[in-house]
């Protein structure tokens, strides 16, 4: 008993990749064992032909750990096909799914911009709230522009508040007018007013 060594190589072990075939991994996406499905999803990293099967798996998967692995692999593709296939889940009744999808979309700065016109105009205001969540972490030069537009134009106070939350970490004094205007647009929303009033002194350097 005590400290034991698994093997006794003299030098650090060089670990080489042993990857199952794509066909095997695609079959394993439907395996009854969640761990097998999870590993198959991760193993399909970079395999463009696997995108349709992975998007289908997002729709049917019930294990969150498997779904997260699928989303990790999918988001690395960052194509409009993947982004569009994921964005439909922003309207899901499953809160965990729509949040996980929003986090995945936030890592896809190349393909998400093409979705923005439709997302900003989505009739379901909950989809627009999730869109603000995506923009909060999206590394794209126009992310703040879209958020500012949501704050200035969106008719629903929850969307505007979500957009303000998303904008604030990177906001500057130049955003103060649009925030003040939002308060005037929704004078009966105390939470929105509080959020803006708490943030303004920092933005304008009067804190």
């Amino acid at each position, binding site marked *: 008993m005590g400290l034991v*060594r698994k093997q006794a190589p003299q030098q650090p072990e060089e670990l080489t990749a042993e990857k199952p075939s794509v066909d095997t991994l695609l079959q394993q996406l439907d395996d009854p064992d969640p761990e097998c499905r999870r590993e198959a999803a*991760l193993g399909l990293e970079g395999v463009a032909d696997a995108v349709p099967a992975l998007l289908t798996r997002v729709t049917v998967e019930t294990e969150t*750990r498997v779904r997260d692995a699928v989303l990790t692999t999918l988001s690395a593709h960052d194509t409009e096909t993947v982004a569009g296939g994921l964005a439909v889940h922003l309207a899901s009744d499953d809160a965990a799914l729509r949040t996980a999808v929003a986090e995945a979309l936030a890592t896809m700065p190349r393909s998400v911009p093409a979705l923005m016109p439709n997302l900003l105009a989505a009739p379901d205001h909950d989809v627009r709230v999730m869109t603000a969540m995506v923009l909060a972490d999206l590394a794209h030069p126009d992310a703040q522009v879209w958020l500012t537009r949501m704050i200035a134009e969106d008719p629903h106070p929850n969307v505007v508040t979500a957009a303000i939350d998303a904008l604030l970490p990177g906001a500057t004094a130049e955003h103060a007018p649009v925030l003040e205007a939002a308060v005037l647009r929704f004078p009966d929303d105390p939470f929105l007013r509080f959020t803006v009033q708490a943030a303004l002194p920092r933005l304008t*350097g009067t804190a």
Partner: protein
Amino acid sequence: MSAPATGAVLSDTDFTRFTEYFYKRTGIHFTSGKRYFVDKRIETCIRNSTYDTFTSWFAALRMSDNSGMLQDLINQLTVNETYFLREDYQFDAMLSTVLPNVLKDRGGVSRIAGPVKILSLPCSTGEEPYSIALRLLEEWDQIDQVDVEIHGADIDSEVLAKAAHASYGERSLQRVPKPWIAKYFNSVGTGRYQVEDGIRSAVTLHRVNVCDTPAMRAFRDFDVVFCRNVLIYFDELSSRRAAENLYGAMRPGGYLFLGHSESMSRISPIFTPTRLPEGIVYQRPTGAK
């Protein structure tokens, strides 16, 4: 002072805005007490960039997905020095709570099947896995009843060669009690000490990239993983992939220690945070969903 930034000098507002941004991206929070340190490092980043003011540099950093700028910033603002018994409150947690739980979950000392497995990733030049070995040998009363495997892994073959040689200077050993040095090290020159052969041969070293999913499949059933101060260097996607690979390397119910400034909740929801007296540790859930 809240004047607009001129040159590389940060106004108070700039400093607040910058520290909030950096915290959001890395989980590292700089208080105003670190103002001088942050100012100097940002000056260096601006000098290394194509921008000549804080305002333009910071705007480019925030608005672009130029990971090179962020990496330069992280390199400047993180200290990569490692040493024996660093952040040893987590080793305290391992000894006082985690390992007893592992033994209990695996049927108790008398019925445990296979060794307790501990992984240090990245292990750099070896200080962390050898620190774990020292703490176990000196302070864990079950060490004579249980087999323990310690593994160290890193992407860098040069640091692994140093880990295998396991020779350290006084700076690296400053927190190791003198009796431990006398007991577990051999003097190999002025101010240098080498970990004794028995411990060196007990630690298995591997070269691996934590983001390399196929290679990480070689790691399985670890009860305890230390992955400290590395995820902050990755972008969101790489962090998620690393988290998935660490998850796959762990036994259900296994424990993951991150650096004190890191948070798995910012990266992936697949682990369950558990609050111990010594801080947060993340567990691979035992059940489904």
